[in-house]
C-alpha cells in the first residue's frame, strides 16, 4: 500500500504517519505525532513533572504577588488575593505545559536551561523523595506560615516589604547552599538573623520591641520552610547520636529519684501530675518545627518541674534542685530525637535567644542534662562501681532488691494500668446496673399492661354493657319530634385503654 501511495504522488511519508515512538501504530498530529497509547504515557510523565514544577512556581508567584499586595496597601480582601493567585497559577500551568512538552522532545532542553530552572529541578528531585501525603501536609503548614507572616508584615509597612525581600533572598540562597555542610548553612542563617535585625534597627529605626517581634516572625517563616532540609540532615551524625542517647537513656531505666537526689515526691498526686506534664512538654518539643516553639516546650517543661519541686518542698526551687529533676525527667521521658533537636535549635535559632533570656537558660539546662546523662557514671549516682555495672548490665535492678517498696505509684505504666482496671470495673458495674434496670423496666411494663387489662376487665364486669332494645321509646320520641335529625348522635359508652 505504501508503495502505491508513493507512486501516486501523495506527499505524505509513511514514517511521518507512524507514531514517533516507533510502536508501529499510526500517530496523530494532535498528539504530537504519537499514537494514542504512547501519547497518554508521555503526557502522563510530563504532567507529573509539570505538577511538581508548577507547585514551585505557583508558590514563588504567590510570594511575589503577596509581597506586591502587602506593599500596595490595597484594601482588597484576602479572598480576591487568593483568587488572583489561582488564576495566575492556572494560566501559568497552561503555558508551561506546552513548554515542557516541547522540552521533552528536544534533547537539548535541559542543558540550556537557566540557573533557576536547574535549581527548580533539584527541588523537584528533593520533593519527590517523601511520600505525596507528607509533602502535602508540609505544604499546608508552610502555606499557613507564609500567610500569617504576610499578615504580620502588613503592620510593618515599608520595613515589612524589606523584610520580605530579605527573607526571599535568604531562602533562595539557602536553596543554593543545600549541598553545603550544615555548619555553613547554620552560619548563613545566623548571619541572616543578625543582618536583618541590624538593618531593621539602624536603617528603618524600628523600636527594639518591634524588632524582636519581627525576628520571631521571620524565624518562624523561614524555619518552617527550611525545617525538612536542615533538621537532622543526612550529612551529619545527628541521627546516630539520637540513637546513642536513646539507647543510653533506655539502659539507665533503673535510675531512681533517690539516686539523683531529686527533691520530688511523686506520691503526692499534684506532683506526679506535674511530672507527667513536664514529660509531655519535653516530648512535645520534637513535634514543633520552629526553634522558638521548641524552646517554648522546654520552658514549659521546666515550669512544671519547678512547680513539682515547689509542691514537694514547700519552698521555691533553686538550681541545685532543678537540674537533677530535669535530668530525671529527661531520663523518664526519653524524648525522641533529642540530639537532633538540640543541634537544630543551636544551629538555627536566633542566637541571642540561646545565650540569654529565660528560654536560653532552660535550653542550657537541657544541654547540661543531656551532657550529664552521656557522662553519667557510678560516682554521679553515689553508687559503687559494682552496683552500677550490675544495674547497667541488667542483671539486677535496684527495685528488685526491695520488693516491699514496690507500689503501683512507682511506675507510670503500672499506675495507668491500675487506673484503667479501676475504670473498667466501674464501667462493668454500671453496665450491670443498666441491665438490671432494664430488666426491671421490662417487668414494670408487663405488670402495667396486665394491671390495665385487669382494671378494664373489672370495670367491664362492674358495668356490663347492656344494649337495651332501642326501638319503642326512641321511636316514640322521634315520631313526635320533627327536628330529630339535627340532634347530635347519642353518646355511647366507650372504653379507654389508655
Amino acid at each position: 500500500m505504501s508503495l502505491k501511495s508513493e507512486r501516486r504522488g501523495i506527499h505524505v511519508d509513511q514514517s511521518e504517519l507512524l507514531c514517533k515512538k516507533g510502536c508501529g501504530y499510526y500517530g496523530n498530529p494532535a498528539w504530537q505525532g504519537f499514537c494514542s497509547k504512547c501519547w497518554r504515557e508521555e503526557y502522563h510523565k510530563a504532567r507529573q513533572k509539570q505538577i511538581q514544577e508548577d507547585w514551585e512556581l505557583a508558590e514563588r508567584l504567590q510570594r511575589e504577588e503577596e509581597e506586591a499586595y502587602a506593599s500596595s496597601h490595597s484594601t482588597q480582601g484576602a479572598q480576591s488575593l487568593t483568587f488572583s493567585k489561582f488564576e495566575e497559577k492556572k494560566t501559568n500551568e497552561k503555558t508551561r505545559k506546552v513548554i515542557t512538552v516541547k522540552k521533552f522532545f528536544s534533547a537539548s532542553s535541559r542543558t540550556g536551561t537557566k540557573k533557576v530552572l536547574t535549581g527548580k529541578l533539584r527541588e523537584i528531585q528533593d520533593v519527590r523523595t517523601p511520600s505525596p501525603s507528607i509533602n502535602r501536609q508540609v505544604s499546608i503548614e508552610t502555606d499557613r506560615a507564609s500567610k500569617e507572616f504576610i499578615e504580620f508584615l502588613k503592620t510593618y509597612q515599608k520595613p515589612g516589604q524589606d523584610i520580605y525581600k530579605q527573607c526571599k533572598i535568604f531562602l533562595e540562597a539557602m536553596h543554593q547552599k543545600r549541598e553545603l555542610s550544615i555548619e555553613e548553612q547554620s552560619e548563613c542563617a545566623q548571619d541572616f538573623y543578625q543582618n536583618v535585625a541590624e538593618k531593621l534597627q539602624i536603617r528603618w529605626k524600628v523600636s527594639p520591641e518591634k524588632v524582636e517581634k519581627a525576628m520571631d516572625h521571620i524565624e518562624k517563616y523561614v524555619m518552617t520552610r527550611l525545617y525538612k532540609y536542615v533538621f537532622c540532615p543526612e550529612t551529619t551524625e545527628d541521627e546516630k547520636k539520637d540513637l546513642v542517647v536513646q539507647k543510653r537513656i533506655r539502659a539507665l531505666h533503673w535510675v531512681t529519684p533517690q539516686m539523683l537526689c531529686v527533691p520530688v515526691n511523686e506520691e503526692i498526686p499534684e506532683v506526679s501530675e506535674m511530672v507527667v506534664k513536664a514529660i509531655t512538654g519535653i516530648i512535645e518539643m520534637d513535634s514543633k518545627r520552629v526553634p522558638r516553639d521548641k524552646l517554648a516546650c522546654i520552658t514549659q517543661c521546666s515550669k512544671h518541674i519547678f512547680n513539682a519541686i515547689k509542691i514537694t518542698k514547700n519552698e521555691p526551687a533553686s538550681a541545685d534542685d532543678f537540674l537533677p529533676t530535669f535530668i530525671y525527667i529527661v531520663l523518664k521521658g526519653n524524648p525522641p530525637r533529642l540530639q537532633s533537636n538540640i543541634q537544630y535549635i543551636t544551629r538555627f535559632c536566633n542566637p541571642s535567644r540561646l545565650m540569654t533570656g529565660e528560654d536560653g537558660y532552660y535550653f542550657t539546662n537541657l544541654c547540661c542534662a543531656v551532657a550529664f546523662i552521656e557522662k553519667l557514671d557510678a560516682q554521679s549516682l553515689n553508687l559503687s562501681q559494682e552496683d552500677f555495672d550490675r544495674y547497667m548490665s541488667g542483671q539486677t535492678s535496684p527495685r528488685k532488691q526491695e520488693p516491699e517498696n514496690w507500689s503501683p505509684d512507682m511506675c507510670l505504666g503500672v499506675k495507668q494500668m491500675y487506673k484503667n482496671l479501676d475504670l473498667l470495673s466501674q464501667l462493668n458495674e454500671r453496665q450491670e446496673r443498666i441491665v438490671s434496670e432494664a430488666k426491671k423496666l421490662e417487668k414494670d411494663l408487663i405488670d402495667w399492661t396486665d394491671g390495665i387489662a385487669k382494671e378494664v376487665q373489672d370495670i367491664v364486669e362492674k358495668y356490663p354493657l347492656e344494649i337495651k332494645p332501642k326501638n319503642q321509646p326512641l321511636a316514640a320520641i322521634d315520631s313526635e319530634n320533627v327536628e330529630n335529625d339535627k340532634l347530635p348522635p347519642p353518646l355511647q359508652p366507650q372504653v379507654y385503654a389508655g
Partner: protein
Amino acid sequence: MFKKNMAPRRMKQMGARSSTDGHFLQQAYIYKVVLLGGTTVGKSSIAFRYVKNDFKESMPTVGCSFFTQQVCLETATVKLEIWDTAGQEQYQSICHLYYRGAKAALLVYDITRKETFARAKLWLRELEKEFLHDEMVIILVGNKTDLADQREVTFEEAEEFAKIKSLMYMETSAKSNYQVTELFTAIAHELLKQEQQEDPGLQLRKNSCVDLQEPNGQTKKCCMS
C-alpha cells in the same frame, strides 16, 4: 514587662555590641551573670534576696534559678540576667555550658566552710580555661557573714587570693541582707566600665557592616554553634 525588656539584649547579642548606641535614647545593656559555687553556700539566696528586695513579693519566674534585675546607674541602665547553676560536685564537669556568653561570674563560697572556698578556687580554674582574663568580670563572694563566729575563711585570706588572681572580692550575707545590693551594683559598674572601654573600637567597626547581601565576617555570631 519582662518580655519587653528582653529586646535590647537581643539586639546587643546580635553581634554588634554597641547597636544600642546613638539610635535609642534609653540605653539598655544586658549582661548575663552566672552564679557558681558549691551547694548550700547561698548562691540562690543571694540572688533571691537581691531580686526580691527590689521587687517585693513578685517573682520573675516560678522557680528561683533565673532572675532578671535592672540596675540604674548614673550613666546608663544595666540589666542583669542572673543564671543560677547546680552546685553539686557531679555537675561540675558539665557546668561549662552555663557560662557561655556570660559577662560576669560570681564565685560564691561559705565563710564557715573551708572546703567551699577550695571549690570556688576550682571553679576559677574552670573559668580560666574558657575565658581570657579581660573577657569576664569575676567576683569572689564570701557569703554568710551573719555566722561570723563560725568563720573558717578569713577576710584577709580571701582578699589575698583575690588580689593575686585580680578578682573583685566582697563579703555578703543573704540572710541579714548585708552588701547584697552593693555586690550587684559593683558588678554592673564594672561591666559598664568594660563596655565603655571597648566602645570606641566597636563604633568604628559598626559603620562598615550593614551590607545584607554579603554577610560580614567580622560580626560572626556567638560561640553556640
